């Protein structure tokens, strides 16, 4: 054990500073004891009592700084560096730290002009916070899921009663006045107002709208259960009313996962009442006949095209397959032998894009296994297990609970998909791969790059990959760059999810002929 005294002459510091220096010295360096003090008589006496004997100490005066340390000889001998570092640290001013409110009410006190609460808390607390926000007269976007059905009904009743939006629970996407709420793409401002009960469905429609040259006035989400019998479309109906009254909006788009028939009727009636040209897409339902100002579309991309046409953005031709592209891909599959029917593997990050692809593939007559259940029976589809014929592939929604327990959603962390890809490719030896890639706010910073890495690690002759990218040129991840990354590893990228699914179906059918 060694004792050492260091004197810094004419180096005055106040006592609080010195106490803090002592504490930090002890916390950084392994010492038995340390005293940092001005060499005032009482401190000198105290140090003498503690056994510090030093001529320099005896001569030091009240304006001199004393650093007395006691510890292992090696540590004590090289203590200067630690002291210098501490003294330098002290001079460095830390960045201004912002005080953050801890409750909604405190936040409203700090930002009284706030008009919307964006809530992504754990379900049990989310409902309570949403109720509080509505009672305080603020609109709500409730990203959280796991909110009880009766709570959802109560929240939406309260919202409608107060003339407020309650987007969600389980609302992933919205954009108001061009500002993204949750997951959203950078869509240019325009005249098409969108209300939707599906996350990636809204993203796909609005991205297509942007790509076709038009733009959106407002994008309102309602949460996936809104058009169920129990919730009764409360928020969809309220949103339609708001878009009807909004002067900027001249075309209204309404999309939903399969609605309860009674509620679908109400939504159509509300759109008729609104009077503005409207396009409805009820997923998994064949398009209905036009009713007055209300038209129906079969797919998300069809919905966007029809809406753009109504908004005056030209005719968009119905999708036709690029026959040459189909042939090229069939030829690429060739090495497997034309007698062998290609096996499809679809791995999707977006719930709605997965649903749409499954629907379109089954609609084309393919028999697929999936963790998704389609509502109703597709026209030409063969329901699983009802046919003796072999399965033609597997399509998975990787955002389903079974994959996201305790880990982030694949739109946020797409590595999950690469893991599944590797595993399923070696298990099932599929020959045709189908993907979605979702860009925009909230999504991973480079989902296409991650997927490209996954694809290149399993690449082999006779394996065909098709993908579509939900996103716009203005999204942070970059549409063109994303496309390039995928094409660089041989993925065929088409414009939208509809085209991707239809291309996959055409390739399978063509090679089976």
């Amino acid at each position, binding site marked *: 054990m060694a004792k050492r005294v260091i004197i810094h002459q004419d180096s005055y510091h106040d006592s609080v500073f010195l106490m803090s220096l002592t504490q930090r010295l002890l916390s950084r360096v392994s010492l038995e004891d340390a005293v940092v003090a001005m060499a005032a008589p009482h401190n000198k006496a105290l140090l003498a009592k503690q056994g510090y004997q030093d001529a320099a100490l005896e001569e030091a005066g009240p304006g001199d700084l004393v650093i007395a340390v006691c510890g292992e000889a090696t540590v004590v001998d090289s203590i200067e560096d630690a002291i210098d570092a501490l003294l330098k640290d002290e001079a460095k001013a830390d960045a201004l730290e912002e005080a953050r409110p801890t409750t909604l009410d405190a936040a409203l006190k*700090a930002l009284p002009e*706030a008009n919307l609460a*964006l809530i992504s808390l754990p379900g049990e607390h989310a409902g309570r916070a949403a109720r509080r926000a509505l009672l305080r007269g603020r*609109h709500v976007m409730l990203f959280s899921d796991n909110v009880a059905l009766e709570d959802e009904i109560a929240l939406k009743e309260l919202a*409608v009663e107060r003339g407020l*939006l309650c987007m969600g629970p389980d609302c992933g996407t919205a954009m108001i006045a*061009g500002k993204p709420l949750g997951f959203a793409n950078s869509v240019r401002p325009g005249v098409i107002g969108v209300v939707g009960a599906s996350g990636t469905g809204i993203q796909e429609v609005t991205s297509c709208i942007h790509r076709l040259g038009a733009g959106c006035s407002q994008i309102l989400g309602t949460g996936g259960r809104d058009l169920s019998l129990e919730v009764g479309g409360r928020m969809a109906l309220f949103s339609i*009313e708001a878009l009807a009254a909004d002067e900027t909006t001249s075309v209204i788009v309404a999309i939903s996962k399969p609605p309860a028939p009674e509620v679908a009727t109400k939504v159509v009636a509300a759109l008729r009442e609104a009077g503005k040209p409207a396009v409805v897409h009820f997923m998994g339902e064949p398009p209905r006949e036009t009713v007055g100002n209300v038209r129906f579309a079969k797919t998300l991309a069809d919905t966007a095209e029809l809406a753009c046409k109504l908004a005056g953005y030209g005719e968009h031709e119905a999708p036709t397959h690029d026959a040459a592209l189909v042939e090229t891909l069939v030829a690429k599959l060739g090495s497997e032998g034309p007698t062998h029917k290609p096996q499809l593997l679809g791995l999707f990050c977006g719930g709605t894009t997965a649903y749409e692809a499954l629907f379109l593939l089954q609609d084309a007559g393919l028999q697929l296994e999936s963790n998704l259940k389609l509502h109703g029976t597709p026209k030409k589809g063969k329901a699983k297990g009802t046919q003796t014929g072999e399965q033609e592939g597997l399509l998975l929604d990787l955002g389903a609970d079974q994959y996201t327990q305790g880990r982030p959603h694949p739109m946020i962390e797409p590595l999950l998909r690469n893991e599944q890809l590797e595993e399923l490719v070696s298990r099932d030896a599929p020959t045709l791969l189908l993907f979605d890639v979702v860009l925009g706010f909230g999504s991973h910073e480079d989902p296409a790059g991650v997927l490209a890495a996954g694809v290149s690690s399993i690449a082999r002759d006779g394996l065909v990959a098709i993908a579509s990218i939900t996103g716009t040129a203005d999204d942070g991840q970059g549409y063109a760059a994303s496309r390039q990354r995928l094409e660089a590893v041989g993925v065929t990228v088409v414009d939208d999810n509809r085209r991707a699914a239809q291309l996959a179906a055409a390739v399978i059918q063509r090679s089976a002929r």
Partner: protein
Amino acid sequence: MSAQKTLELFATGPKVINLGLPSFADDLRRSGAEVLHVDWRPPAGGDPHLLHALESLQGSDGGVLPEIATANEEAVSRLLAAKPMLVGLGKASELIEGMHAKHILHAGPPVSWQRMSGPTRGAVMGALVFEGLAETPEQAATLAASGEIEFSPCHHHQAVGPMAGVISASMSVWIVENTAFGNRAYCTLNEGLGKVLRYGAFGDEVMQRLRWMECVLAPALSQALTRAGSLDLRSLIAQALQMGDEGHNRNRAATSLVIRALAPHLIHVDLPKEEIEAVLRFIDSNDHFFLNLSMPACKAALDPCRGIKDSTMVVAMARNGTDFGVQLASMPDRWFTAPAPLVEGLYLPGFSAADAAPDIGDSVITETAGIGGFAMAAAPAIVQFVGGNASQALSFTRKMLDITLAEHSTYKIPALDFHGTPVGIDVMRVVESGVVPVVNTGIAHHEPGIGMVGAGLVKPPIACFEQALTAFCEHKEQSR
């Protein structure tokens, strides 16, 4: 029409409070929207009983029940209307109701000799020797344990005391009168730093100083004050907050202001020049001289809020080195207590955390009245006690807005654009947010007789506030 508010939202664009994923706030900020991210934590620590209690106090509009809102408005308005004036000095035995030779007042909630902390015991022993009831500290301890001595909290006698807070019959006390309401508060004179009675020291040095204070200091100040008239403590504190004090752990500016106010009168006091010099030097050598004035000023301001039915405002926080206690405006006779915590802070040369006694003293009355830790933004120099920096001092004050009912109308902070200090602690907000009052304080040695060993920040135990809220709900239920 019913879509009106939604159309307004479309027109102005979203101004967002973000609760949950911080990345959503970042995205909004990047696209130019105004957004405030909430440092969210489960309300009431996620305790279902407390959540239920909080909800039972809410009306159908999600705000607190109207009678509570009204009561709290009344409580805050009384607190802000207070005008504490220093009007004089006198003997505890003559001024304090119920005071007698064998009665010792102490800081914090009630505590028996058996449960008393080291510093409180030390101060009691010192006071018994000072009063001539015992000759040695050992005799004093025996007497204190005998049951012959009555102990009660200063707070039960319109008084407050720093650290051990011991007041005995023959000690001189300041008289602070809240002239807006006519109530008074009392506090002893501050003895200075080092080995002092309030930190539980009782040696000869301590006794000599106490005797000098009674024979020279108190009479001199009393005469000077009589000549000066009264001193407006509210305006003194307001000035000091603009000079780097926060009124609890930093009182350098206010102490200087007192010297300025009293010096012209002190020189006329009927004492030899040397003694007047000694008086002035004594005040000058003790940066905490004013603490014993800021405390009764805060006590005098808060006492008129006692007994306001349905108010959830805190009217006292206090500790005795054993327990931390809280009192509510609507139940002013009840203490809600939990074990006193340890102070996080820095130590004087030669001492460490191992020497520290748990939190002690009535000085947290300053935070209760909206200064002290709540005014940390005014006194950046003292955040160094917790290794903080000047911007953290601002954060500490801003954070207290989460748990208070108002901003102070007189106590303003230059660095916060002259916003008032957060004032009026609402027990509902404390429990809901889990944010406890930030308290600056000194640290006493855990052994009697040694004194001050450091200073720092202390976190009041949330349990006191949770108990208070539960009791408030029960009380409300019963009176329905």
